[in-house]
């Protein structure tokens, strides 16, 4: 009952004309950004954070706008999967398998509408799960001391690459580099400058927004420059007829059990550290294929093959919010960007957030529900409009993206120095992507590095300089054990898992 009362308060905050307008704007922008090739949820939210920040929106408004963009981009990612066979983002990869064949059979509109419904079901059920699970996790998190938090941060970094991570040494490199970047600036505890080289601009540290926009958005521009006119140029696909845009009732009906099962599966893989949306959609698709694919129609345009990964990936997106809100530790790239949103608004997620700022938490959750309904309402009738967005060629789109990135960052401080730093991040991001170094641990490092060090030093200081305090309580031992196992497992299983994902994809696209 208390839960429903809190949720009711949240809706009271979220439902004002202004906030509903932000939600609508966010959903529209998000869907467009998700649909555009080269602008996934992370990029979309990253470009908009500094803008929302400099425009001086209040915390609730900005949060509603940006989470709507996040959810909208998750919806939008499927559009290019289905129409062009190019996933808008990694989790949408599995949607290509049955979505594109459906489109080729002239059922593009139905596939789009069905995946919209599946996205809605997955996101809606997982938001319900979030409401139930997050307060429970908060109760556990309140037992955490500094040593436990330090272990928890280590766990987040160790499992961030996920079970399909390619090279754990590169994940480690990225995490260490990101935390090192956070060290730049005046030390919060003793007040001495570190790694500033006497440069006044560096005393405040490197703004994580500068790092995010540079690494994600700007490096994307360089990738497009590199690939222009080659076979990797994604703009030369054939045009696709949309067909009817409402799926038949029997088609929806056949997908209901699939959507139910994959919602649960997706949610669980979203909550677990290191799994995330990509694995959520992959596991959902594989399970459904084993369970219901009796006639071997999966991969040839079976509606259930569209519904399963879409439900799974959106459910996982909701599930990933649980550790982010309750513990302050995101488990995936997109939730890391959402963490950046909160930190930019001076809100520190974690167990205390639920006690000190219940309005923010429940307002956000209410906004997620509202955004979901809006997206469903927008997506079914307006899908034709969104597909037209796909026709905007990168040669026109990317200059706009680059310039808006610069405008947003310039707006924060009004200094050319930040623009230079962003450019360095953009070039470095391009090189690191070529070398297959994951960028998300770098971002997470710049976001959480200082907090991690503070907990480390606090724990040891309380114990009078005794470093063994870091692994003294049972809880810390458990967390460290999970961290170590989570870091080691991918070394052994990721190659088999990757091969299987590749094989499934190849079998079906041939």
């Amino acid at each position, binding site marked *: 009952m208390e839960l429903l009362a809190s949720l009711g308060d949240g809706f009271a905050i979220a439902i004002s004309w202004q906030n509903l307008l932000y939600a609508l704007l966010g959903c529209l922008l998000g869907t467009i950004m998700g649909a555009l090739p080269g602008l996934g949820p992370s990029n979309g939210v990253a470009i908009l954070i500094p803008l929302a920040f400099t425009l001086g929106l209040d915390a609730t408004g900005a949060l509603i706008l940006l989470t709507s963009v996040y959810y909208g981009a998750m919806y939008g990612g499927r559009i290019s999967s289905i129409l062009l066979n190019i996933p808008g983002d990694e989790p949408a990869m599995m949607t290509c398998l049955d979505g594109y064949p459906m489109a080729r059979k002239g059922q593009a509109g139905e596939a789009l509408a069905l995946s919209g419904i599946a996205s809605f079901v997955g996101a809606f059920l997982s938001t319900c799960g979030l409401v139930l699970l997050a307060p429970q996790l908060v109760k556990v998190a309140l037992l955490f001391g500094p040593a436990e938090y330090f272990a928890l941060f280590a766990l987040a970094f160790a499992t961030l690459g996920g079970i399909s991570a390619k090279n754990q040494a590169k994940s480690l490199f990225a995490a260490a580099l990101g935390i090192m970047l956070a060290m730049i600036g005046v030390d919060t505890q003793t007040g001495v400058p570190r790694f500033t080289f006497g440069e006044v601009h560096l005393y405040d540290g490197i703004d994580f927004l500068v790092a995010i926009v540079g690494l994600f958005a700007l490096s994307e*521009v360089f990738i497009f420059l590199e690939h222009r006119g080659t076979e990797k140029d994604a703009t030369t696909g054939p045009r696709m007829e949309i067909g009817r845009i409402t799926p038949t009732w029997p088609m929806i009906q056949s997908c209901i059990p699939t959507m139910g099962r994959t919602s649960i599966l997706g949610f669980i893989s979203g909550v677990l550290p290191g799994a995330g949306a990509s694995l959520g959609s992959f596991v959902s698709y594989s399970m459904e294929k084993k369970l219901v694919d009796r006639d071997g129609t999966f991969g040839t345009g079976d509606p259930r093959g569209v519904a399963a990964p879409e439900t799974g990936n959106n459910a996982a997106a909701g599930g990933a919010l649980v550790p982010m809100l309750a513990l302050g530790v995101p488990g995936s790239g997109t939730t890391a960007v959402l963490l950046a949103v909160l930190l930019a608004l001076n809100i520190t997620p974690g167990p205390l957030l639920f006690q000190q700022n219940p309005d923010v938490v429940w307002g956000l959750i209410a906004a997620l529900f509202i955004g979901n309904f809006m997206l469903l309402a927008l997506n079914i009738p307006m899908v034709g409009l969104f597909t037209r967005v796909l026709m905007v060629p990168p040669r026109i789109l990317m200059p706009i993206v680059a*310039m808006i990135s610069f405008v947003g960052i310039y707006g924060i401080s009004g200094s050319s120095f930040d623009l230079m730093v962003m450019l360095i991040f953009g070039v470095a991001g391009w090189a690191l992507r070529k070398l*297959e170094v994951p960028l998300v641990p770098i971002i997470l490092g710049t976001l959480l590095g200082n907090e991690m060090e503070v907990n480390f030093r606090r724990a040891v200081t309380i114990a009078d300089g005794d470093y063994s305090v870091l692994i003294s309580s049972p809880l810390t031992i458990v967390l460290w054990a999970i961290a170590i196992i989570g870091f080691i497992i991918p070394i052994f299983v990721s190659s088999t898992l990757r091969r299987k994902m590749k094989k499934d994809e190849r079998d079906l696209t041939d």
Partner: protein
Amino acid sequence: MSDRIFGGIGLVIAIFFAWQATLIQTSFISDAVGPKTFPILLAVLLGISSVYFLLKPDPEPDWPRAGRFAEIAFAALVLLAYGQLLPEIGFVIATALTAGYLAWRLGSKPLEAVIVGVGTSLGIFVIFKLLLGLSLAEGPLGF
């Protein structure tokens, strides 16, 4: 080979970072750990992973040809110049030039590039400055 070079660079960064960490001046009030320990720990982790790249490099990534390298380097230079010139010549002119250049290099015909450049610049100016009131760089002409 790329991974080996990368590992070498990583190792240099790690050593440089650790060296800089030892140079941090400690103030007279400090906690039990101090401001140096954690950065040194990070440098060690970065160093270990870099040594791993040196010993066990991944297969060579798909690097672009020299021409494309120059393309990316030149685009970075143009954006660098943009950042420096922004306060000098004002937002509208600097942005129109830069966006136009990027559009041209991404495959637009010259006329289209001019339209994209001017359109992007004026579009951002109208939406963000006039409608939303964001502060953009002002040149001597006031825009």
